[in-house]
């Protein structure tokens, strides 16, 4: 019963609103007259959202829409402004769209902060010819045939927006006026992406320009307010990729963001603010986003980890991985949840990753190489801590061992280089590299030990000389007493 009353009340309200709308449209003398004159703009306006909402031409152009006398309707006294100028035309839009009360009265619940966002965006900067903002409302939404953004006929509908943005951003001629360095191949790349393919097939779910860059609030990529600023990208991508309902349709997992934020890359970028750390787009691409194929993973990782990639490509693992179709770096390091590489990853005991493929057989080459690498790394680290203790001890004893202490930095450098050399999976090469560390640390250890020995030598030397001088003093004193007694 309650629902019935609700439905009746809704129908009454709808009819009241609709009948008022029809009356308003019937009274719009501007529209009527221009339509009679076969004015193309009036024809377009027939399906414009504003016309459908009962807004007359005078809503934007001023004048009196109720008068059928052209002189009265288009008189300055009645506020007729004609075609708004290029520089000020956005004012006509914001008269209503920035006024929450007006929008409410017109029965719209769309946000009224678009102008505020647009004003602060890159697009609202003055155009190169000083004719107004670079882009205003009409640039994207067009005029006289504006549709609801959810209407597939709207210029800014997801499947249309790529062409719209591309109309400027794909034109080198146009873009050079603003940023000659900015690429103009975004649309071309986008079309090669998974997103672009789906979008081209008319799928509005697929990410398009506005999904990542935003709409009214667009900022340059290097501006930290931009939605696609390096530190913002993971959350932008996760808007869709963490949406289990949406991703289920495409059978894509949704744990990438959760994993990424815990990864060494995610922590570096999001917690430490290290902009050199990769975000989603650095591995997957941005406009041409695709998951990297098994064969190209080392290339993608190698854009930053150059040495590791080079060493891996020369290593015996390259051939084996290719044969077994193993993803290269990912097999040991994972993908989104890349953890800081530790020395425990090497060796023949868990959690070493080598055991994932190599059998624990003491006679197998893999076992020998991995085991020996692990022993050498651990030995150098152990020697480093022992030598540090010796040098600290010498330092506390007041001995100068600054050169040796400084040389330990080189040992840590060798350790880093050795960890990189592991990727060649060549024991001789690895031994040659880590051997440099042992040479330095042995020298530092000897220096520290010598300094401690020298410290004790000084103390003993002092003790002996003090005793000798004291004996001399005593002898002299006895002699003096004898001499004085005599005299």
């Amino acid at each position, binding site marked *: 019963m309650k629902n019935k009353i609700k439905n009746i009340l809704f129908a009454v309200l709808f009819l009241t609103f609709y009948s008022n709308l029809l009356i308003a449209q019937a009274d719009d003398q501007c529209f009527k007259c221009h339509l009679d004159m076969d004015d193309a703009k009036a024809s377009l306006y027939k399906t414009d959202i504003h016309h459908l909402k009962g807004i007359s031409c005078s809503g934007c152009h001023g004048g009196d829409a109720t008068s059928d006398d052209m002189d009265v309707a288009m008189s300055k006294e009645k506020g007729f402004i004609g075609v708004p100028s290029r520089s000020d035309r956005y004012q006509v839009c914001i008269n209503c769209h920035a006024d929450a009360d007006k929008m409410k009265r017109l029965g719209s619940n769309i946000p009224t902060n678009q102008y505020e966002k647009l004003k602060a965006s890159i697009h609202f900067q003055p155009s190169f010819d000083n004719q107004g903002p670079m882009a205003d409302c009409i640039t994207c939404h067009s005029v006289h045939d504006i549709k609801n953004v959810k209407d597939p006929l709207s210029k800014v509908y997801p499947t249309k927006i790529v062409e719209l943005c591309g109309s400027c951003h794909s034109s080198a001629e146009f873009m050079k006026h603003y940023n000659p360095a900015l690429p103009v191949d975004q649309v071309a790349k986008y079309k090669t992406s998974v997103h672009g393919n789906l979008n081209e097939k008319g799928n509005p779910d697929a990410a398009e320009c506005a999904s990542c860059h935003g709409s009214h609030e667009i900022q340059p990529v290097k501006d930290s307010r931009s939605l696609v600023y390096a530190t913002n990208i993971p959350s932008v991508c996760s808007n869709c990729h963490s949406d289990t309902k949406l991703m289920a349709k495409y059978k894509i997992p949704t744990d990438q963001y959760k994993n990424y934020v815990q990864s060494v890359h995610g922590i570096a970028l999001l917690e430490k603010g290290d902009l050199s750390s990769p975000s989603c787009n650095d591995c997957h691409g941005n406009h041409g986003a695709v998951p990297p194929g098994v064969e190209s993973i080392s290339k993608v990782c190698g854009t930053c980890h150059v040495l590791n990639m080079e060493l891996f490509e020369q290593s015996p693992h390259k051939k084996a991985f290719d044969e077994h179709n193993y993803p290269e770096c990912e097999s040991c390091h994972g993908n989104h949840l890349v953890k800081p590489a530790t020395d425990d990853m090497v060796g023949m005991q868990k959690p070493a990753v080598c055991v994932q493929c190599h059998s624990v057989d003491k006679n197998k080459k893999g076992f020998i190489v991995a085991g020996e690498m692990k022993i050498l790394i651990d030995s150098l680290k152990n020697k480093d801590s022992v030598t540090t203790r010796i040098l600290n001890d010498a330092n506390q004893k007041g001995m100068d061992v600054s050169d040796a202490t400084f040389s330990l930095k080189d040992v840590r450098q060798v350790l880093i280089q050795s960890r990189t050399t592991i990727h060649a999976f060549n024991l001789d090469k690895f031994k040659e590299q880590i051997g440099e560390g042992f040479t330095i640390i042995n020298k530092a250890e000897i220096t520290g030990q010598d300094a401690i020995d020298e410290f004790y030598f000084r103390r003993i030397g002092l003790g002996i000389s003090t005793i000798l001088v004291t004996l*001399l003093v005593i002898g002299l004193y006895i002699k003096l007493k004898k*001499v004085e007694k005599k005299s």
Partner: protein
Amino acid sequence: MKQENQKKKNKYLSWLDERYNLSGLLEFAKKKSVPKFRETIWYYFGGVALLLFVVQVISGILLLMYYKGTEDLAYESVKFISTKVSFGWLIRSVHSWSANLMVLSVFIHMFSVYFLKGFRKPRELTWYTGFGLLAMSMAFGFSGYLLPWNELAFFATKVGTDIVGQVPLIGEPILKLLRGGDDVTGATLSRFFGFHVAIFPGIFVILLTLHLLMIQRQGIAEPEEYQKLPDNEKKTIPFFPNFAMRELLIWLIVINVLAILAVFFPWELGTKANPFSSAPVGIRPEWYFLFMFQVFKFLPGEILFLPGEMVGVLLFGIGIALWAIVPVWDKKTAKGNKNTLLTYVGIFVIIFIIVFTILGYILD
């Protein structure tokens, strides 16, 4: 056997005497004596200062073999001496400690001569040369302090030479002469190095020779009270061998103290001077300049119509000059009367130096 040895000894002595006529010197040495009374202990400090000067010369020559007096290499060469050269650390530490002990000994020696009125006629010139030796010891310390070219020494030299620049009329030219320009730079280091190893030792040796010759010629001063004693109550110690042996005994103790200080408290090098960095906290000169430095800190920016520092320099200048010419204005002692005011002035000066030195360390 004993007689044979004595014969051998006499043989060598007569060989030397035949060639160098040593018998006169030996006669002189035999007659030489030192008054024996309760203050005799103070007579040893001149000798201690002399020993430490000899240590300075020997250790300084050894350091010179490795030290490089240029802006780029000074710090590194001192570091090299301290860490790489065999016993370099000991030589450097001994040089630094003996320099400080030498200044201390010279101060004690000067005050003992002052209180015992050893400066009175006919020993005025001995006092003046002694005062010159004290001034030279402090100049040695000031110039040597900069030579390792470390941060603390760099800024302390800057402040020290700034104070010299406050001397009216001649301050500015002296400042430029010392620094070799407007600021403390590598040119200052070269200059200080030259002063420290060539000019100052030359002057010091001349003054020291004169000082020692005067003492030998006039004998050791007798204090007023001792002089008034009847001849039969005057006790003396023969200089050879008794006093010399006692002096040697003290020298050995000083050498022991020096070795302990050098080993247990090696002289730190600090960080290399960087003329472009801001002055570090806790800049202070060597302890024997600290009382003056502290007084300057307390002085207001302006006194009457003159800059505070200038007034300080003038007052210190007058005070030091009066101290130096004490044989001229102390008429009472010269006439054989007791001058207690002089003693009070001396006590005041000692208290003043001690109090302001302690304040310099406490209020750092």
